[in-house]
């Protein structure tokens, strides 16, 4: 009995304790946030930081913002391929997830600092999404945004404005 309790404590107790504590922290929308690998982004107004999806590092890193029910995630990793290869890699990961598929065509985008990227859309069970990918300075920057279509429509302009502030200086 004690053995079962101990295992259950690890498998279910710790996650329950984790869920009982808030994961969101305020974040300033008027100054760059360091994601990792030297890449920064200015968060969109009204966003909060979700610490469970945020792991800054010297060589790589990730950040997760939430705007209500919308997830805005940016992942930075070392990468030595082309932008096309980076986009293909992200698209493959999206479509490898059961029930997810790409929508529309891919468009060229650029950040304010001049880093070229590609962006597109995808859809999954009960939610839509946007992705963007940039390659610069030996790093890949992957952006994914997901949420219900109505929420996405309301928040995408602010998120796209935030994405343009990505700066791999």
């Amino acid at each position, binding site marked *: 009995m004690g*053995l079962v309790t*101990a*295992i259950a404590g*690890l*498998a*279910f107790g*710790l*996650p329950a*304790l*984790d869920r009982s*504590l*808030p*994961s969101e922290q305020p974040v300033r929308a008027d100054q760059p946030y360091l994601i*990792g690998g030297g890449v920064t982004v200015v968060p969109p107004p009204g966003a909060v*930081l979700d*610490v*469970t999806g*945020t*792991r*800054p*590092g*010297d060589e790589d*890193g990730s950040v997760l913002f939430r705007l209500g029910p919308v997830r805005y995630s940016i992942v930075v990793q070392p990468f030595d391929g082309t932008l096309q290869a980076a986009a*293909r*890699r*992200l*698209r*493959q*990961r999206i479509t*490898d997830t*059961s029930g997810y598929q790409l929508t529309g065509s891919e468009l060229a985008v650029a950040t304010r600092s001049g880093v070229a990227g590609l962006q597109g859309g995808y859809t999954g069970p009960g939610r839509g999404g946007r992705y963007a990918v940039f390659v610069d300075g030996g790093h890949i920057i992957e952006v994914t945004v997901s949420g219900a279509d109505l929420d996405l429509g309301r928040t995408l302009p602010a998120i796209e404005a935030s994405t343009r502030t990505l700066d791999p200086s």
Partner: protein
Amino acid sequence: MVGVRFATTYPLAALTAFVLFGLLAVPFWLFVSELDFFEREPAALLVVAFSWGGLVATAASIPGSAALEDLTAKLGSPSLAAGWGAALAAPTVEEIAKTLGVVAIVLIARAQVNSVLDGIVYGAMVGLGFQIVEDIVFAMGAVALAGNGDHVQPVIATFLLRGFLSGVWSHTLFGALAGAGIGYLVVRTDRSRRVRFGVAVLAVAGAWASHVLWNSPILDDGLGNGGLALLAVLVVKGLPPLVLILLLVRSAHDREADYYVAQLATLGDPELITEAELGVLKSSARRASARRRAGRRGFLAVRRLQRAQARLAVELSRAAGSVSDGSVGRWCDEVREQRRILVGMNHPEAISAPRSWRQTASTVATTVLAVAVLWAALSSLGGA
């Protein structure tokens, strides 16, 4: 659930991971199960231990470790979780989950855990099961992260990195240390309860500390990216626990061997065991040497004799404790039968041979080959 999703999305990569890491488990399994030559553990219990590590401990550790890492981010900071989350969360949850596997074995079959070495064997088996399943999960995670579809390259890279370079000082080793503590707690009833609990806690804490050191970001940035830097990190972070735990295993092994050989020495019957064979039986290297010395035909016969002698020693110890079921006579007969077979082969005594130049050359060549393979793996991974 996650495993089924990976297997259906990346069937070739999943099959490759299962085969490669399954094969990797074989030498570890043989080594661990041979540790206790005298009182071999029942195969069913070894399977239970392996399954606990591979199924129960991993199933509990995946959500538990993720939650603890998130708690580190919430109560500390995302930076703390990024740097030390994996070093603190995973060892804490995983070492507890694995140690509970040895406790489960004690609860299921207390009579089978009667030496510290038994605890080591069961702990190592739990760790081995955990290691193999975790490696497969990591390999499939690498396939998904690569975003190239159902390709095997990430599996092979994970196999080289986690299977070879970090496999030696991973969960099998940590599990053995924690298992030694549980074994001590259960077996050493001649010591006070406080001492036994203290030793058990110290052993589990040692496994945890070794795991923390291995997962820690220490030296991650300081030695560059080359193969030599990777080797230095492996040596600094992996070698101290490896040496410490191997010495502990050696000590427990020798202690048990001395005990059982002393039982056989009381017989004073050279037909059952000679003076020279007593020395051979204590050491796995000398036992193997004695088998080789008997040639191709005599190899199996010597092994059967040694196993019969070992079993006789166990039965003698049980008889001394008044728990024998009359098996001493039966195993005496078995030893005599095996001796008769050996005598028929003109090989009456199972003793080890002096070390020949061919054995030395073979050892040197194998070592050079192993270092070359290790160096190639380090160079390709460290330079990647």
